[in-house]
């Protein structure tokens, strides 16, 4: 038995099972235990998630094209993008660090966006397939999201340490700001997606088989 069939759901903060009124438009329902707003499904989940996914794809372009970091020395200014940072580490033989940055800054955000798009499309098509696997993918997007922040932190730490008053200065590039926005927007996108939608096709299937039996 699924909770939605009884008009119930769990509060997303305290997990209290709450029964919602049958008719919509009776205002918002608040959790009796913690006072948080309760909805059967996150409102406009699919539209909001799509909007945020598209926004992060757009932001991901300047994040990669613009420099993350600008190093100023007497020899001139050297700008580093995400990719040139990875190449620098590869050339200097730091393969472990190169792969850490490559995974955190490129693999993680792209994987997350691909998973979210797959989840959105499969939910919109009401696909009955691979529900457990899709649930695992959703949990994965929630787990890996914040790890993309590594490169932003590296820029912040470099700025703090390489600060010798005019001699050598490190500055954050505009790419770092865009990249930060990509991380935050994809994290909110994952939060907006409602994993219960993956399993909601079953109500329909059950109704169809009931109708077939009658």
């Amino acid at each position, binding site marked *: *038995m*699924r*909770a*939605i069939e*009884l008009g*119930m*759901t*769990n509060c*997303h*903060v*305290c*997990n209290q*099972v709450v029964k919602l009124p049958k008719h919509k438009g009776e205002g918002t329902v608040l959790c009796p*235990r*913690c*006072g*948080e707003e309760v909805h059967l499904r996150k409102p406009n989940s699919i539209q909001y998630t799509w909007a945020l996914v598209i926004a992060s794809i757009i932001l991901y372009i300047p994040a990669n094209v613009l420099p993350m970091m600008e190093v100023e020395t007497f020899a001139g200014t050297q700008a580093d993008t995400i990719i040139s940072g990875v190449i620098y*580490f590869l050339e*200097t033989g730091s393969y472990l*660090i190169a792969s*850490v*940055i490559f995974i955190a800054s490129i693999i993680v955000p792209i994987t997350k966006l691909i998973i979210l798009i797959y989840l959105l499309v499969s939910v919109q098509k009401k696909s009955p397939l691979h*529900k*457990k696997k899709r*649930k695992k993918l*959703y*949990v994965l997007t929630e787990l890996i*999201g*914040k*790890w993309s*922040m*590594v*490169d*932003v*932190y*590296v*820029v*912040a*730490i*470099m*700025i*703090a*340490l*390489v*600060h*010798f008053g005019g*001699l050598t200065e490190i*500055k*954050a590039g505009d790419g*770092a*700001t865009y990249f*930060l926005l990509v991380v*935050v927007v994809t*994290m909110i996108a994952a*939060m907006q997606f409602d*994993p*219960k939608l*993956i*399993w*909601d096709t079953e109500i329909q299937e059950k109704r169809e088989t009931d109708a077939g039996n009658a």
Partner: protein
Amino acid sequence: MAEKMVCCHECDELLHIPQTQKEGRLKCPRCGTVLLRQKKGMVEIMYALSIAAAILFLLTNYFPFLSFHVVGNTSHANFMTSIVYLFGEGDWLIGIAVLMTTVVVPLIRIGLMLSLFGPIYHGIIPPYTVLALKVLSHSLPWAMLDVFLVGVFVSMVKLVKMGTIVPGLSLWAFMVMVFVMAAMQVVFDPHPLWEKVDERRRQKGMA
């Protein structure tokens, strides 16, 4: 026997379980998500871990984090240094993000854990329990000290080629703190605390 309902937050499966749950994990039969993980001694362990985390947090922010020497120049950095420079350069968006995810959110979480589990360990359910649990639930994704630690390692490798890096006392404290906070996240189970809130509400209702 009295029963209560549990609804799976991933797949919406509704379960009826006995009111008094014995120890152990409860898995959702439909999707496999762990719904309950009653563990003995959770309050004691959380109290100890949050005291440790609070002390380590103070150490981390007080002592220099890393020192960097390049031909006669030395710079020291702790957590706030990078944030001050970021704001100074006008990179306020990155400054706010670093400040929130590595200082403000972790500090709030440690403070709330301490002010929850301290009184509860001594048998008192503080009046701010509901608010504290709500803030803990909403702030979880935005605490990123573990990610910052990886950022520290990457920066060290980058800088080692430019000069001499000297790890400060607070770097060691910070590494321990990241592990303590990870352990807190594994042990932390808000469910029994919500049940205590329920109990108190029922008692109030009867009085």
